[in-house]
């Protein structure tokens, strides 16, 4: 993870000088990942865009105080995760979780390819299963299995020990396995 810090250094330096083009590059580079975290956590596109936008605006304001000890992506994931968890905990959500099963699109083919109908059903089941996860487990699954972060990065994003990351991830996967039993061999 640390080796990526050097890659971020030039962009970070330009961001610190307030260069508008640098911020645009940052948003362009990380927009899909930040939006993806918010979408999978909140289950609503409008609310996900709102959170993703707020993530970048907060980064814009705080980049001067960012010490550069983590990768820019990790930092953005941390901001987005915190905003999502705060939104879910606040109980004042303006948008309910959408029933749009396309939010979690299963692959069209693969070693265990299923028919289109079954794929649709699988997407719906996956959507409901993820939504039913406790939030602290859901964020770990999202960061690990949807976004591909390492345990260490997840610990850094969430500010929790590695054992906590492992434990939450394992419990979340077991919950999902139980809910997706129908599509499992």
């Amino acid at each position, binding site marked *: 993870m640390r080796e990526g810090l050097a890659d971020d250094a030039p962009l970070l330096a330009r961001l610190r000088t307030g260069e508008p083009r640098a911020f*645009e590059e940052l948003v362009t580079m990380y927009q899909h990942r930040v*939006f993806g975290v918010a979408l999978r956590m909140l289950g609503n596109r409008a609310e996900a865009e709102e959170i993703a936008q707020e993530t970048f605006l907060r980064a*814009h304001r705080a980049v001067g105080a960012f010490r550069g000890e983590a990768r820019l992506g990790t930092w953005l994931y941390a901001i987005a995760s915190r905003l999502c968890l705060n939104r879910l905990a606040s109980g004042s959500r303006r948008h309910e979780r959408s029933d749009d099963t396309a939010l979690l699109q*299963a692959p069209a083919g693969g070693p265990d390819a299923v028919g289109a109908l079954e794929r649709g059903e699988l997407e719906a089941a996956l959507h409901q299963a993820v939504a039913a996860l406790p939030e602290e487990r859901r964020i770990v699954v999202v960061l690990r*299995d949807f976004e591909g972060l390492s345990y260490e990065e997840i610990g850094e994003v969430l500010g929790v020990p590695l054992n906590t990351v*492992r434990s939450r991830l394992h419990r979340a996967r077991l919950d999902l396995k139980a809910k997706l039993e129908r599509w499992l061999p």
Partner: protein
Amino acid sequence: MAAVTCPETRELFSARADDALAADERARLDAHLATCPECAAEWQRFERTVGILRAVAPARAPDGFVDRVLAARPRPWYRRLARSVFVPWPVKLPLEAAAIVLVAGLALVIVQRSPELQQAARAPAPPAGVTAPPPPGESARPSSEAPVWSELESTLRDAPPAGKVESARPEPTAAGDAARSAEAPRIAAESRAKSADGPEVGRRTETDHGRDGAGAAARLARPSAPAPAPEESGAAPGQSGSPPLRGRLTVGNRAAAERAVGELVIRAGGLVVDRVEEPEALVLGLVVPADRWDEVRRGLAALGALRLEGERGRTAGTLVMTLRLER
């Protein structure tokens, strides 16, 4: 290598799926799965679950997301300042016009709701007796002298604004006429003083009589050098209390004589301030600088048979005269 139990084995599934086990841990786990069909089946389902999760298509931010973020980003202070100073004209002009209209409207509302401000905005009322205009109908009286004088008086006077006319004007008696006549020279002098400050008299005479009023009024307003104070000279009409000078001019062609009189008076720096047609005569109201009176008198005498009443020796100030043109 110590054997692991089924619960211990299943606790390692996540780490196994993420390939995060140490070599020896993985070897023990694989050995257990090879000998335990239940754990092996459970592992297959677990691995399949993780496979489904990882196969989910990555999310994509909606179109235009970057632009919306950039638009929502707060601008640096120097850009905000520059934008506030250099707002494009198509935006700035309507804003400024709207601001002017708003301020004007507010001022109007404030004035309308403040009687004190309305009173302050009005012109101060002239003293009683001077401000009163002639009662209705008086100016239409077919007299040869009083109406002319009345019109002259009202012409030279700075009339009060509408609605501020004094109602205590005395009836037009002979004594009253005499009193007004006595006051007329002073009014004329006041009008000269006012005309020195502004074009009020000149504008009015020009409007009323359609002659070279502006220039004549300006010349009339110019004090006769050296102009002593009217009270000191004792000669200017309206100051001395003497009635206006009256004259009769018998001519062959009244129209031609009228034009000649007008040119003569204006040339002398005076003004024809009134004109009343009577069956037998044409009555003109003249105002002439006193120091040019001799010149005017000679000119009038050249036009026809001139008879003067009430002529006095005046060398300064303004002379007011009613001239009857008769055949």
